[in-house]
């Protein structure tokens, strides 16, 4: 692998008494496509802000191409999408792309940037007249218009429907296809991280709790939430040996998280337990991270 492009070294960021990031070490090398995954408030956006020099770490260090992230040379090689920030809404799409291109040493042609962002037919439209998804694609066009070596994207698919999200991620992957561009994006969708990235860094409560290829992470994050009302009170012993990641017996209904809910249910029924009001749904990420954090804690 090549040189480190983005680095956080024991990076801590406090807001008042809250640790948004608590001593994070990570290094992303040239050509890597990395997803930073975590629930809302986990510290993803804070990590991105430090990488970009939008905020200074309370302690520790952030580096971009081995330099301060505020360094103009470093930033000239970096394209950015932020969650909340945009551009003045009275500019037209092509004008904004042309403007942002002028910040970089060798911008790609405006028409090409719009084509890559699937906005070619919107070039003359004013930004305040774009839909949410179109605006997000404009921000993508602004991120790539400088022909950057690294793309740092904070929740790039916010405001998109499932279908356009999928197509959009494919575009990002194409952009990285030459193997020399580095991509760092945050998301709270594990499927997104899986579709795009070759490495997933999981952050929760300001800590890195996992840093591994998608297959490893997926194996550790339970995919389904099962809940049912048993016909008799159950104890943990009833679940012995079953693939259950997390179990809650405190209420009248039993709740658990598992990657193999069918195995769990077959076993329970074989053990003579009748699951009434049965519900099997996809675990939301908050629950999944609860399980992941606990399993890591238990392992350590």
């Amino acid at each position, binding site marked *: 692998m090549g040189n480190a492009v983005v680095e956080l070294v024991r990076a801590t960021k406090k807001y008042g008494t809250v640790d948004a990031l608590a001593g994070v070490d990570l290094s992303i090398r040239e050509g890597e496509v990395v997803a930073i995954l975590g629930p809302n408030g986990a510290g993803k956006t804070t990590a991105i802000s430090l990488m970009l020099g939008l905020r200074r770490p309370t302690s520790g260090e952030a580096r971009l191409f081995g330099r301060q992230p505020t360094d103009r040379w470093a930033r000239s090689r970096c394209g950015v999408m932020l969650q909340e920030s945009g551009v003045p809404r009275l500019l037209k799409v092509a004008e904004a792309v042309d403007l942002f291109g002028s910040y970089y*040493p060798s911008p790609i042609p405006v028409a090409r940037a719009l084509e890559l962002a699937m906005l070619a037919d919107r070039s003359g439209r004013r930004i305040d007249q774009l839909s949410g998804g179109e605006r997000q694609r404009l*921000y993508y066009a602004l991120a790539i218009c400088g022909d950057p070596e690294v793309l740092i994207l904070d929740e790039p698919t916010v405001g998109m429907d499932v279908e356009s999200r999928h197509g959009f991620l494919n575009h990002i992957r194409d952009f990285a296809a030459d193997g020399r561009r580095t991509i760092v994006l945050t998301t709270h969708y594990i499927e997104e991280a899986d579709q795009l990235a070759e490495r997933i860094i999981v952050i929760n409560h300001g800590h890195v709790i996992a840093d591994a290829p998608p297959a490893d992470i997926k194996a550790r994050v339970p995919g389904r939430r099962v809940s049912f009302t048993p016909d008799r009170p159950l104890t943990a012993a009833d679940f012995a040996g079953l693939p259950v990641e997390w179990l809650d017996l405190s209420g009248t209904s039993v709740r658990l998280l598992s990657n193999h809910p069918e195995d769990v249910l077959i076993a329970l029924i074989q053990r003579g337990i009748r699951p009434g009001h049965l519900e099997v749904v996809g675990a939301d990420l908050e629950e999944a991270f609860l399980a992941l954090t606990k399993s890591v804690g238990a392992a350590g």
Partner: protein
Amino acid sequence: MSAIAVRPTRSTPRLAPIGRTLWKQTRAQWRLLLRQPAVSLIAIILPVLLYVLFALPSAHRAYSSNVSMGAYMLASLGAYGVGLIMVFTFGATVAIDRGQKNDLLMRATPLPPAVDIAARASVAIVFAVITLLVLFAVAIFAGVRLQPMTWLAIMATLVIGSLPLLGLGLAVAYLISPNAAVAIVNVIYMLLAFASGFLAPMNQLPNFVQQLAVYLPTYHYAQLAWGAIGVPSENVLVSAAWLVGYAVVFFGIALWAYRRDASRRSG
């Protein structure tokens, strides 16, 4: 479809030429201004309207032995109009961009902040010149006659002397919460303009205001403007020194507030 040629320059990173960036940033600022005609028109119309209402009827009367009322009010309202653009049009647009978080994405790009400020300032200065030309035309219509060099002197004095007010607008924009900045800028400028004799002659103001005024940047700005048309006023060098001092203070505060803002913002 996917390929964008990888250039051989990868290993030797370069920077965008500042001239190109400044030109595009300035053009974008003009576009934004012209697409909000209400904002730009008010800045032009307000001083002209005040001139028509208050100066036109008495333009021929003498203010002093060698200066007509029309010329005196031209200098006063010229100062008022240019100050309004520097403090309000310039300062408030910076504050509004900050409030809408339009600045955050630009801050993450290689755009040097000074280039953004220079672009906005150059727009404000050209806009001030246009406002003054309109005001000059109305004054000539009202019968004001001055030497060509005097017209030039008023123009130059009003534009160059307004730089501390540009700093004031910028300082307020970065210092105060964006939601409050527009209102506060309005109040500050109204008080300064009134206390410095832009809207009513100094000698008609309450005594304590007159005593206080000599410490205000706008007072010395107005002194220079009146001096340019021959009204007896403060020593030019003294007023210029005051303005330079205020420029240093205001731009210093703006820089400090910008840095504080940059390290504190969430987003």
